[in-house]
């Protein structure tokens, strides 16, 4: 078993395990921090999937941005929500969670069924890509090519997203502003 | 105005008067009631004195032989194809009923005198009392089955309230028990009544009729009807006429009461207030006996003959069973209640014999028991009013404290146990003689019946010895001794006539036999004739 395989399984287990913890933990702070672990593990998986830049972005944006944002929001929402959360019984399988659990399991089953039966690895376009040498190899340096592509092939989406980000920025700022006349 | 109608409705009239008067005059209610009953008594005496005897006034199954008759059409409905529904207001007396009426009148006066101790809700009490009086008088006069049934049911209502509202500790229980028992009997009687109505036609008009006397004549039954003598119809595998007899008999047997159906009586008597006990024992039990004579034997004579053994057996069982139960009592009122069961057993036994002696004895027993049980219950009421206790074991030596009272008790007790010279002796002796003479019931029944006489001596004498003789010893001590005052004038006024009546009937039985003899002979003749 190669190191890559080992790393994949490690990362996968960390990702899924920490995600489960996030879901199961009654303590919001802990689950938020455990969410870090998930995100890091996912970043690792991106690397193993030969997407270094995405992995870095993942770490920077998510961990550095979103999670901090979440923590801020959480702290701003006050003690009360904490208190409510602390009261919840600390059981993994609580009765009121059972429907959600069932639905989630069912969905997982559904997805797994689909994925296992789809035989994705034998998909024609993958065969074609492999035949055209259109597959990343670990030796490739991807980042240059990615930059070029973003600025050429994907310029329009890139710009649209920039505007969207701007709007989101403005909107978020507007929303979080104290309402003077409310 | 017909004298019987007056007799029946005088109480109702006074009852309305009481209802109309304001509550402020409630002290006068008892006097009003007393007046009503006294008028009734006067009418009763008039009836008795003017009652004509002789074979041509025997009554029973000859409408024209009844006296003081009034017959008015009452309900007349044209029912199309079903003919006319015809109910008459039809009253009249023969030898059997006239004595019952007189006795009722006397007992009612006594009961009013016993009502002096009632303290609460006088208006309701006396109004109900008079209503009961009317119903009882009506029952004894009615010659129309519908009318009879109406009055019969009408008796229940006031009694239920009188027991249930003015009674003792367990009054609701007793009242309900009494009511359900009696209703159980009479509801089925209703069915038979309707069946009879549909079977019988009035020979004059051709309509169906409720006329009791028409029902006694086999010729009036339409061909093939349910109760027709000739058609031999069956219901549920039982001959219809037997079934009819049994059902009506059960209804009246509950009233009498006959042993397996008697358990309402001790409870009702014990819980009822004194005047109601008096009426219950003095009059209402006789309604049962009267009903058996007039309706069971009158309408179904051939069944009465064939079932005489069983009726007699029930009578004997009642006699002995009631007496033995009385022996086991320690509540004085309950003892007397059971003694009533025993004494009324003689009535049944005498009737079963279907001999002149037996039936006359039974009639005498009814009259005699009417007076004597009234007297007994009145006496118990006196002591209960004074100390609110009537447990035999709680008294001793009352003869020292209340000598006059004891004298009356002794008269009542000895008269009840059949001492010669008092009415019960003549009644019981001739009941037994008739029973022995009869071919319908076995001879041993007469001998067994006489054991009842022995047992009655046992329980009455035991009570006398335990309660009245010996050294004075009362449970309540001096307080009771203070309370147990001698007899009041009113009480003497009630007791004395009863004692005299019991004595008079014992010394001159012809006072009763003279009036009933023709009717009894006619009844016997009639049953024999029907059987042939």
């Amino acid at each position, binding site marked *: 078993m190669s190191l890559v395989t080992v790393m994949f399984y490690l990362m996968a287990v960390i990702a899924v395990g920490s995600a489960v913890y996030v*879901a199961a933990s009654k303590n919001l702070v802990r689950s938020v921090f455990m969410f870090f672990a*998930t995100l890091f593990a996912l970043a690792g998986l991106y690397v193993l999937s030969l*997407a270094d830049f995405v992995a870095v*972005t*993942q770490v920077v944006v998510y961990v550095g941005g979103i999670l901090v944002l979440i923590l801020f929001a959480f702290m701003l929402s006050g003690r009360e929500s904490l208190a409510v959360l602390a009261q919840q019984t600390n059981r993994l399988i609580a009765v009121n969670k059972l429907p959600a659990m069932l639905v989630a399991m069912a969905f997982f089953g559904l997805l797994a069924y689909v994925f*296992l039966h789809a035989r994705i690895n034998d998909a024609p376009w993958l065969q074609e890509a492999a035949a055209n040498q259109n597959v*990343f190899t670990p030796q490739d340096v991807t980042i240059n090519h990615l930059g070029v592509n973003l600025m050429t092939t994907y310029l329009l989406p890139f710009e649209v997203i920039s505007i969207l980000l701007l709007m989101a920025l403005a909107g978020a700022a507007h*929303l979080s502003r104290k309402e003077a006349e409310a | 105005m017909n004298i019987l109608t007056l007799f029946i409705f005088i109480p109702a009239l006074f009852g309305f008067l009481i209802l109309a008067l304001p509550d402020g005059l409630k002290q006068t209610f008892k006097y009003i009631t007393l007046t009503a009953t006294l008028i009734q008594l006067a009418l009763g005496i008039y009836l008795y004195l003017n009652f004509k005897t002789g074979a041509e006034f025997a009554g029973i199954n000859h409408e024209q032989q009844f006296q003081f008759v009034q017959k008015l059409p009452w309900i007349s409905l044209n029912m199309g194809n079903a003919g006319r529904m015809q109910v008459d207001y039809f009253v009249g007396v023969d030898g059997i009923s006239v004595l019952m009426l007189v006795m009722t009148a006397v007992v009612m006066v006594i009961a009013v005198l016993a009502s002096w101790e009632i303290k609460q809700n006088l208006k309701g009490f006396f109004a109900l009392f008079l209503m009961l009086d009317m119903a009882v008088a009506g029952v004894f006069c009615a010659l129309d089955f519908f009318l009879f049934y109406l009055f019969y049911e009408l008796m229940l209502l006031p009694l239920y309230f009188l027991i249930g509202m003015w009674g003792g500790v367990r009054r609701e229980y007793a009242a309900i028990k009494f009511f359900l028992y009696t209703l159980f009997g009479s509801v089925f009687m209703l069915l038979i009544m309707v069946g009879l109505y549909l079977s019988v036609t009035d020979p004059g008009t051709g309509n169906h009729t409720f006329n009791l006397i028409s029902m006694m004549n086999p010729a009036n039954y339409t061909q093939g009807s349910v109760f027709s003598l000739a058609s031999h119809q069956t219901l549920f595998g039982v001959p219809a006429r037997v079934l009819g007899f049994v059902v009506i008999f059960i209804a009246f047997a509950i009233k009498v009461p006959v042993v397996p159906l008697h358990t309402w009586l001790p409870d009702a008597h014990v819980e009822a207030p004194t005047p109601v006990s008096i009426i219950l024992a003095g009059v209402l039990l006789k309604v049962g006996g009267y009903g058996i004579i007039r309706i069971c034997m009158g309408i179904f004579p051939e069944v009465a003959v064939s079932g005489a053994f069983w009726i007699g057996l029930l009578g004997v069982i009642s006699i002995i069973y009631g007496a033995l139960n009385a022996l086991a009592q320690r509540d004085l009122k309950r003892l007397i209640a059971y003694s009533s069961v025993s004494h009324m057993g003689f009535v049944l036994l005498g009737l079963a014999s279907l001999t002149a002696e037996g039936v006359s004895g039974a009639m005498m027993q009814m009259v005699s028991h009417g007076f004597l049980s009234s007297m007994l219950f009145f006496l118990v009421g006196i002591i209960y009013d004074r100390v609110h206790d009537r447990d035999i074991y709680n008294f001793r030596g009352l003869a020292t404290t209340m000598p006059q009272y004891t004298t009356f008790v002794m008269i009542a007790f000895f008269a009840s146990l059949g001492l010669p010279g008092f009415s019960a002796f003549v009644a019981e002796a001739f009941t037994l003689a008739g029973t022995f003479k009869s071919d319908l019931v076995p001879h041993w029944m007469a001998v067994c019946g006489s054991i009842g006489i022995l047992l009655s001596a046992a329980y009455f004498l035991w009570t006398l010895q335990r309660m009245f003789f010996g050294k004075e010893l009362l449970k309540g001590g001096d307080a009771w001794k203070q309370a147990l005052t001698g007899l009041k004038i009113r009480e003497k006024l009630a007791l004395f006539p009863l004692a005299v009546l019991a004595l008079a009937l014992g010394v001159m039985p012809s006072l009763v036999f003279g009036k009933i003899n023709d009717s009894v002979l006619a009844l016997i003749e009639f049953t024999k004739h029907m059987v042939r």
Partner: protein
Amino acid sequence: MITLTHYLLVSAALFSIGLYVILSKQNAIQILIGIELMLNAAILNLVAFGKFDKINNGGQSFALFAIVLAAATTAVALAIVLNVYRRYKTIDPGKINQLKD
């Protein structure tokens, strides 16, 4: 050999967990985390398939876009959550039910 199926299964697990979090939690922030989990599952798929598009870099590019969009939506969502909290003194979406009949 790590195939695409492996990645897909991991992403399916993450997606389901996110789904569970969304369904079961009564805290808007946690629900947000659930949404992030589901988004990440999707991004993982993009990245995994992106491996087979060396020339156009479609998978990785859109993974980047998605990450950025997620950040943006999160920021807006959190702002909304804060507002909601201010108004209702709760961040339980179940209790914010004024639309109910």
